[in-house]
């Protein structure tokens, strides 16, 4: 059940350094050593990603891995050195300045790590800013801004200035602003990295709640693997400008494509990732203690499965597809698989 691809990015390169474009024309696939020899820095190298409608696509990597540059290539805040990016079927890289302005006004929203709020505007005015830029009249844009401010839970604080808000609240304003123009695709560049761990968790929940309402197509950047597996439908792991693997959180843990990914996933709490369907066994009886969904993560079902002597039935919709026993759950919990 593949969904339509909204943002299609093929063989995208971003090199920093002297005459990067000429270099890339003569060397179609340079190695790290080639780049160093030519005094170039490969921020994004030969990246292929297809972002599907309404999915949360997380780009995960440590600092310097090129993830922020990649998301800026996707929104054309940074011009790619080479490659092809198609947004809703149209070539984004050849869009004129005017077309780009229109695309950004109507179809793209972005949230920034340091919030990037305008210090001289109130919460409401900040949220209304993208509409103000489009020339929408004050009444209409403030009505719409009020909607998004309420949506992110800041009702009653419309008249505050950013400096009067906590970090979490400021980022809520950032989110409200990015949603004001009802974008098709939503870029979030490490939106919660600047927040305290507790607030971060709260904001992640908030984010999932919003996505349940909005069903946006999302590109989410993070350096925090736990955050990635909590939020992602699919994760792209990036290192030195190269995408090492694109997969669901579960696949990353169970079938890491490279040593780097394996190293990353080794210490992940597997119960949070592995789903019932991956560890179930064929049904061999008809007495069950209860039912669990096939895509439930083990962490969520561990408690009752472990508490009963009988296995639980694993259901895909109305259809039973297997059974899961105490033993299988404990295997996952203690890391035997």
């Amino acid at each position, binding site marked *: 059940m593949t969904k339509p691809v909204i943002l299609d990015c093929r063989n995208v390169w971003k090199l920093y350094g002297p005459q990067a474009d000429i270099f890339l024309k003569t060397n179609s696939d340079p190695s790290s050593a080639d780049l160093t020899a030519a005094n170039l820095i490969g921020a994004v190298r030969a990246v292929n990603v297809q972002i599907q409608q309404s999915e949360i696509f997380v780009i995960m990597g440590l600092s310097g891995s090129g993830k922020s540059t990649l998301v800026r290539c996707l929104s054309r805040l940074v011009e790619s050195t080479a490659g092809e990016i198609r947004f809703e079927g149209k070539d984004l890289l050849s869009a004129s300045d005017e077309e780009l302005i229109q695309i950004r006004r109507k179809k793209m929203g*972005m949230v920034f790590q340091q919030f990037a709020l305008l*210090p001289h505007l109130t919460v409401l005015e900040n949220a209304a800013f993208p509409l103000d*830029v489009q020339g929408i009249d004050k009444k209409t844009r403030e009505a719409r801004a009020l909607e998004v401010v309420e949506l992110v839970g800041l009702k009653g604080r419309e008249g505050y200035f950013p400096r009067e808000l906590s970090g979490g609240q400021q980022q809520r304003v950032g989110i409200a602003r990015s949603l004001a123009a009802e974008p098709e695709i939503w870029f979030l560049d490490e939106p919660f990295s600047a927040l305290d761990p507790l607030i971060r968790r709260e904001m992640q929940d908030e984010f999932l709640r919003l996505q349940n309402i909005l069903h946006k197509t999302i590109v989410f950047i993070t350096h925090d693997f736990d955050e990635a597996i909590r939020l992602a439908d699919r994760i792209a792991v990036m290192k030195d400008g190269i995408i090492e693997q694109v997969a669901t959180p579960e696949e990353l843990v169970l079938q890491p494509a490279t040593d780097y990914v394996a190293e990353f996933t080794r210490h992940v709490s597997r119960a949070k990732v592995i789903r019932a369907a991956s560890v179930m066994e064929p049904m061999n009886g008809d007495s069950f203690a209860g039912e669990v969904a096939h895509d439930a993560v083990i962490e969520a079902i561990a408690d009752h499965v472990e508490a009963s002597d009988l296995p639980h039935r694993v259901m895909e919709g109305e259809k039973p597809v297997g059974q899961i026993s105490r033993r299988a759950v404990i295997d996952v919990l203690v890391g035997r698989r």
Partner: protein
Amino acid sequence: MTARLLRSGTLFWTVLFAVTWVLSSYSFQLYKAFDARWIVRFPKKWQLPLEDRISDFLDWLVEDASFHFFSFRDLTRAIAALIEAPYQVLRNVLIEGFSSGYGDTAVQIAPSLSWLAVIVTIMAVGHYARDWFLSVLVGVCFLYLAVFGQWESAMITLASVLIAVPIGVIGGLLLGIFAYRARWFERLIQPVLDLMQTVPVFAYLVPILILFGFGPVAALVATVIYAMPPMVRITIVALKTVPKEIVEAGMMAGCRKRQMMWKVLVPSAIPTLMVGVNQVIMLTLNMVIIASMIGAGGLGFDVLASLRRLDIGGGIEAGLGIVVMAIALDRASQAFADRSARHPLDGNLLQRHPWSGTVVLVIGATLILGQFVPAVQTYPDALTITTGPFWSDAMKWINVNFFDTFEAIKTVILQWLLLPVKKFFTGIPWAWGIIATGLMAWRVGGWKIGLLAALLMTFIATSGLWPKAMVTIYLCGVSVLIATLIGIPLGIWAAESPRAGRVILGLMDTLQTLPSFVYLIPVVMLFRVGDFSAMIAVILYALAPAVRYAAHGLKEVPPALIEAGLMSGCTRRQLLMRIKLPLATPQLYLGLNQTIMLALSMLVITALVGTRDLGQEVYIALTKANAGQGIVAGLSVAFIAIITDRIINALAAGQRDRLGI
């Protein structure tokens, strides 16, 4: 062995100094021995006729230059008219009132703003900018002007400030924006800004005088030219330091270029831009007295006139008037810089704008009341207090009782410090001077800076200004030396003891608010004219940066390093000498650099008290309206400033490299 000696710094500097000293001491004997007069004097026939060329060019510009449709003269007249019109309106509002008709038939239509209305307005501005405290402060400052009989002059000065500041701010902002957008323009304008900040004002007074004639317009033009460069610089920096993410947020919102500039960049940069506005205001006030040399009236003219009459009391009184106004405008504009947007108030029109309402009411009320009660309109003369005689008497008393003490101090310093140094510098043969400067600059900053230094010194020599330039260097050197010797310990003290720091840094803030001219008044009164008086005035004026940068540098030392020092068992003294001071050296160099720049700018003004240096040359040019002479001498001062600036920056950069900062 020899190679190591050559590389060693000590040897280089010792040899350089020794050779210079020998040549300086025996230059006269050398000239006699070889019968070569060129050794001590730059040959007349090698001099470049730059002065005449520049003067001729200006004459041509004024007399003959034409751009097909209009002549250059029309252009300057148009500019003059553009400035004159709003200036005249402001004068009418603040001083003269509006009238129709001319001469005896003139009928007054509306009077000027009453003194009460002006004070209430400025208090409203103070309260709007910060709080009641500031409001009262600026109110008291302006009340001072009324009570001490400076009102009319002060309003003339205020009118020119109110014209010069907006032009300077908006012009600077636009140039800065253009430089931010177009890299080629930034590259073009940077050296011009460098030069503008180092060329003494006197140098461009003459061309302005020739182009615009004597009067308030010429004074305003000069003021704007003097006050605008920092605004351009600060605008460029302010726009460049807007966080990258904010710019990206603007782009993602779909801003066009213009929306980006005016809705995102400029508003985000406002706190920094306000620092620039404050600078423009302070520089404008600094120019008040100098501008009165080419026709600005007001407080500046009063000071200048008193100084020329040697009327101590009058000079101090008008000088204090400028100081008071500077303090009021400085504090108010600084408050604006710190002020962040506030929430609008609720209620009806008057409740939402309490201050604008009050101001309008007071203006209206005094307008009507002033027709019947003159004291409301103009502050009654009978109630003014003059402190003039008090200051005169005080000076007289000091001079009578302490004359011998002052004289003794003066003589000792002249005898043992000023004269020997002067002899050393003026004795250096010009050819060796060029080589030595080049060598110094090369040693510190590489061959490019060395070559630049030598070339600029050659320019000074070929303009025939070598002897005067040496006097400038000697006076500047001695003053900077003393200012540093006083300033750095004060800065250390300020950094080490928070209580002393508040007092010292507060004092330095105030010293920096004073227009440079003001320093001359008491100094001349106490020590009369001459090099010594000039030196004292320069030290006072240039002290502040030495103190500030030292204090700042010490405070900036990373706390982790201080903790490391404490845990190694350092005493306070060891902590200061071994950790804080070495790490603060780059900052100390920057302070030294600023001190030298301020000293040079002050030195030109001290020409008024009879130094025989480049400043005097510029001043003479001004009185003779000789544009060429003024510009060449002014450029010479600027070149000395540029050479020292490059050398010291190279020193600071070297030090930073060594410390790995």
